[in-house]
């Protein structure tokens, strides 16, 4: 179990911290061990990141071909959905969804862009393009 090389995680930064894990053996003792997660636990966590990364990459491609606005990319990158984005910015959800369209996004004023930038924790000038 104590394997810091973590062959399952694709991101090198993952799986570096040790956690407290409990277990129960045949003698009826609950044991506490500080260690890394086993392989099955890593597999299921990596699965979630695979799905998230797919969504982020998908959104990035759509932004590049001009189908959706960069807000969608940053929303996916921050693992949000329209509802939580609307709660965070204080803009109602149907307006947030309108701003997903590039046509509406171009017409946004600086004040609203600032709200989105604050929600994503980035600068306003970075909001208009994807990396």
């Amino acid at each position, binding site marked *: 179990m104590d394997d810091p090389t973590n062959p399952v995680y694709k991101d090198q930064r*993952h799986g570096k911290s040790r956690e*407290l894990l409990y277990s*129960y053996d045949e003698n009826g003792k609950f044991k506490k061990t500080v260690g890394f997660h086993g392989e099955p636990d890593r597999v299921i966590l990596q699965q979630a990141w695979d799905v998230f990364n797919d969504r982020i990459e998908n959104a990035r491609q759509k932004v590049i071909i001009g189908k959706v606005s960069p807000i969608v990319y940053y929303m996916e990158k921050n693992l949000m959905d329209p509802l*939580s984005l609307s709660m965070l910015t204080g803009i109602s959800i149907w307006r947030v969804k309108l701003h997903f369209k590039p046509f509406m996004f171009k017409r946004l004023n600086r004040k609203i862009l600032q709200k989105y930038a604050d929600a994503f924790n980035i600068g306003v000038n970075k909001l208009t393009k994807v990396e």
Partner: protein
Amino acid sequence: METNKIILNYTHRQAGHCESGATSNLLNFYGHDLSEPMAFGIGNGLYFSYIPFLKVQYAPMISFRNLPNVVFHRSAKYLNIDATVVKKIRDPKESMLALDRNLERGIPTGMQVGTFNITFFPPEYRMHYNMHNFVCFGKEGNLYHISDTVMEDTQVLSYEDLLRVRYAKGPFAPNGKMYWINNVPKELDMKSAIAAGIKKTVYEMIKIPFPLIGVKGLRWLSRDLKKWPRKHGNDKASFYLGQILRMAEDFGTGGAGFRYIYGAFLKESGELLNNSELLEASDMMGKTANQWREFTYIGAKNCKNRAAPQEDYGMLGNRLFEIAEMEEKVYRKLDKIKI
């Protein structure tokens, strides 16, 4: 810029579950050595709910833990501890001032936070999860000293970051919730606290007349699990199955959806009260927890290759149903025990 430095003499101990760990560490600060499983059991950490129509991170919401702050609140109530819980502070700056005032008075303060923006958090866990708890025990200029029970050591967080995580948005938003202990009695009445804690947990797991909570929810989930591949396709079914396992194993549960911690609580209280029936129940709970682990081992095979499942979902559903039966036996037994 003020440069006053306050660091309280707070012992950081790593724990499986964030909130019971925080509770046990806070009590330890006031001179009562309460272990983590004990705080978890008395404060009713054990829970199960399955809410298929509420989606969290694109999958149905499955929770193995109680609502945020229940563990601290109930263990304080049952142990007769004078504690304060501030549920909501509207102004973020005011909430930070309240934290500063507490630190100046020498009170370590627990907070509910969202995990996504915590800078020191392990990157693999940095998803949106608003029910995390940690304790702030010191301040040095702009930096706050944090004891997060997920981490091995204490950490620091800057003012801006702390403000951001305390006002994370989404389901179960923390809204700057904070809690601390004012006064602790010299002797804790463990017997009545354990009895009250077990009674409440049994009520929540088998007696709530609502089909999605407790053992009934587990059975409902096992029936739904069989339908997922037909209803949503293999890809999504595998992701949903992964969500069950992630909630049970990964997010700071100590393994098997807190069942190990609860078993440890039953064992410890059985030894404390010299009650052989509690020890038997703890053995049953430990075996159930091992079944959960096995369920994870088998389920993870399906998550490895999403499109082509290796194991049959019907078999997994049956296994989950068996686990529900085993758990119900434990709760029925606990229900009859007189402490």
